[in-house]
């Protein structure tokens, strides 16, 4: 091997061409090895990793819906009432994902409750809180702390949050009277903004 390399070093600089066999060496004598099992496994492995992550990338594209039919789900509230989202057709539904461990949710909670108090008497509007990845007693303590009086349900098995592809809390979806998503709100929301959106939907209905 050493002789090979020395030979090569004496060649003019630009004449290294990999197609030319190396000069005067034991290497030439050896028969070229076949593609080994290890090599095949290695290459398949690399491609497999790329495939897995490629599929994951495509899957990840599924983000929070901001239009189209709202994924339906059934839920049972903390105080034991069972519903399906389809039961609420004809009403504007505000779905808010929250958690007791989430800081921004705390900032948002009084705003939501205050907006709810504005609509409480209105039969056309439903507020629904979904406690994401939370623990029951803590969720209830949180609701008591902020005096939350609208419907709230735990997201058992994170089925609902998966259907909506949420990426964190708080996230809010507003579903219109036809069961379509009218608005997706990524971060915390204020009472006034919420009322603007919902009043807009209510007005649209009464005009149409």
């Amino acid at each position, binding site marked *: 091997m050493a002789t090979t390399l020395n030979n090569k070093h004496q060649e003019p600089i*630009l004449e290294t061409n990999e197609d030319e066999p190396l000069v005067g060496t034991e290497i030439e004598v050896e028969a070229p090895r076949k593609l080994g099992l290890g090599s095949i496994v290695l290459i398949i492995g690399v491609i497999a990793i790329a495939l897995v992550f490629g599929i994951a990338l495509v899957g990840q594209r599924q983000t929070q819906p901001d239009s189209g039919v709202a994924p339906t789900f059934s839920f049972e509230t903390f105080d034991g009432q069972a519903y399906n989202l389809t039961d609420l057709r004809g009403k504007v539904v505000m779905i808010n994902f929250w958690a007791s461990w989430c800081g921004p949710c705390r900032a948002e909670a009084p705003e939501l409750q205050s907006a709810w108090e504005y609509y409480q008497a209105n039969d056309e509007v439903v507020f629904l809180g979904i406690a994401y990845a939370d623990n029951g007693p803590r969720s209830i303590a949180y609701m008591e702390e902020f005096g939350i009086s609208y419907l709230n349900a735990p997201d058992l098995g994170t089925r609902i949050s998966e259907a909506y592809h949420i990426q964190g809390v708080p996230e809010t979806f507003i579903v219109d009277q036809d069961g379509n998503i009218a608005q997706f709100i990524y971060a915390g929301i204020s009472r006034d903004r919420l009322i603007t959106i919902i009043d807009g939907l209510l007005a649209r209905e009464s005009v149409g």
Partner: protein
Amino acid sequence: MLAEIGLIAALFAFIAAVYAIIAAVYGERFARSEAMVRSARNAVILNFILVTVACLSLEVALMTEQYQISYVWMVSSPDMPTIYRLTALWGSQAGSLLFWSFLMSAFSAAAVVFNWKSQRRLMPYAIAYMMATVAFFLGLTVFFENPFERWWALPSGDFVASAFIPAGATAPSISMLAQSANGLNPLLRHFGMAIHPPMLYLGFVGFIIPFAFGMSALASGDLSTNWIKVSRRWALIAWLFLSLGLLLGGRWAYDVLGWGGYWGWDPVENAAFLPWLIGTAYLHSVMIQEKRGMLKTWNMFLVIGTFSSVIFATFATRAGLVDSVHSFAQSPIGPPMLTFWLLLTLIGFVLIIWRRSRGELKDDNQFRSVFSRESLFVLNNFVFVALFAVIFWGSFGAPIISEYFMGTNITLGLDYFNSVTAPLFLLLYLLMGVAPISAWGVSTVARMGRTLLTPLALAALSVGLFVISGVTNVWALLGYGLVLLAGWVAIYETYRGVLARRKAHASRENVLQSLGALFTRNPRRYGGYMIHLGITIIGLGVIGSMVFQQETQQTLTVGQSAQIGGYELRYDGLDTNQIADDGRIMDIANLTLSRGGQEIAHLRPRRDFFPEATDMNSTTIAGSYSTIENDFYVLLVNWEPISASSATFKIYINPLVNLVWWGGLILILGTLLAGYPRETLPARVRAKLELAPQGQGAD
């Protein structure tokens, strides 16, 4: 204006990189034209100048508050201090990609300039691989994540960010933009964040040079030790920055993230750790190829694997595939980055397999003894690769496969990582203790045993000290023992070196001079020992802070105290709504820490709230009291209500945690010594060799 300059410079830099690839490969392979290869070299330098211009124009835009540029609008706001304006260049995806390209281009230009003469044969293909990578990242900047997009007001009243002026659009008012500007992510407003990303990026991109030379060796067929020589030093430089970046990241997490630790096995931390593991394995096994001409194929896999995992880490971090404190927002660069990673890895591996099948990567020597240094190094490499595999599986394999293929969410947490990696790390420490005293070629247990005797005794003695100080946990003691053995071997070997020199030069040198001469004559070896010593000290800190961490959470009313680990912590009151220069609102708790009835410190943990930030708008800054023995670390708990009368605190005592930082410092010093370019031969020998053409030149 700045946006145009930046955009055009980035575009032309991209073109220069593509030109360099074509000129280098065509000039070398087909035209055999020296002039063309030189032209490729000049294009590399031009590329560097142009990327610098692009980077500078974005930096100037940040400093001069050009909020019409959407990137500036996104990462800065009028009330931000200058330092964070400066560092906002890498505060978000688009800017950090440009910055990344800039560093990569800088490394490439440096390699081309410094190694032009010494590595002339490897240069053309090395240029091609370097510029292919740079072109790819510049392409991302220009076509996918452009930091020079500007805000435009459309006739419809909507606002869009675009690099070109949309039809009929006008520039929105600057004052309105300034008012709505986001400001830098609060978590990034920390001094550590000013230096952690650049260091980490330097570490990441630095591996492009060893990679390019390795690939060039494979492509050109010049598989002598040339590529090893040049790539080793560059790998060491990259490794230095990567280590520094990891350490600073740990420090930042410890100070800002408020979980009481410095390493959380977060997927993105792990992503940065993976190239470090492979890179470290490479830095070790490359010695075997230099000394014994063995492991040629393996080294190629390691050098390509290191850069491949750098690209993978960047992909995983930036495509937002895994949830992490570091997650960038979802971005369109996922698919191109994955494709690039696949191509780069496949081309590299296929080239290796091809050269190997032609018998060109045949080893010069065989393994002759299980206890020879080369065997132990191979074992060391196995452990590094095993660590790589389990960490990769835990951070990316299991979570991704479960989420996208099994419909459940499996997140492997601290338990998995700690229990799986701890034995492997301890095995590494054992090897770190044993391998340096084994001999190349043939080594016997008896000979090694004799040399090991003193370090073993010293390690046993130090473990005894831990026992006396009250440590009873057997596993911790075993851990301390193995870690200390590695450290004592490093010290003992250096001591033996000094002793040997003293024997030869006692009349002319004092002990310090001998030590200095040792480091000058053989910087790699003794720098290496110093790195081992640093790693030992880090190991002691990690074991101490992991195994013996104490924590408690308590709600205190004013005047009330909490007791933990011999400390007493009294709540003195709360300063609410303190407003800092940059607009953050702080709630600061005043605490008095006492020990043995004596007041030793006033601690002020706080919660910062950033009213103008959209995403993460609060941070929890710990108050801490550090001694060599431990850190007393208090957090104002975020999710419990706080008031002037009562507040909830999370209290940690982290024993020996400061050793992690001190060990890190020693590691950095050792790396600087090991990599310091200096002739290792005495002057008279060098003079004789002056005529030989095979000098190491400026590498």
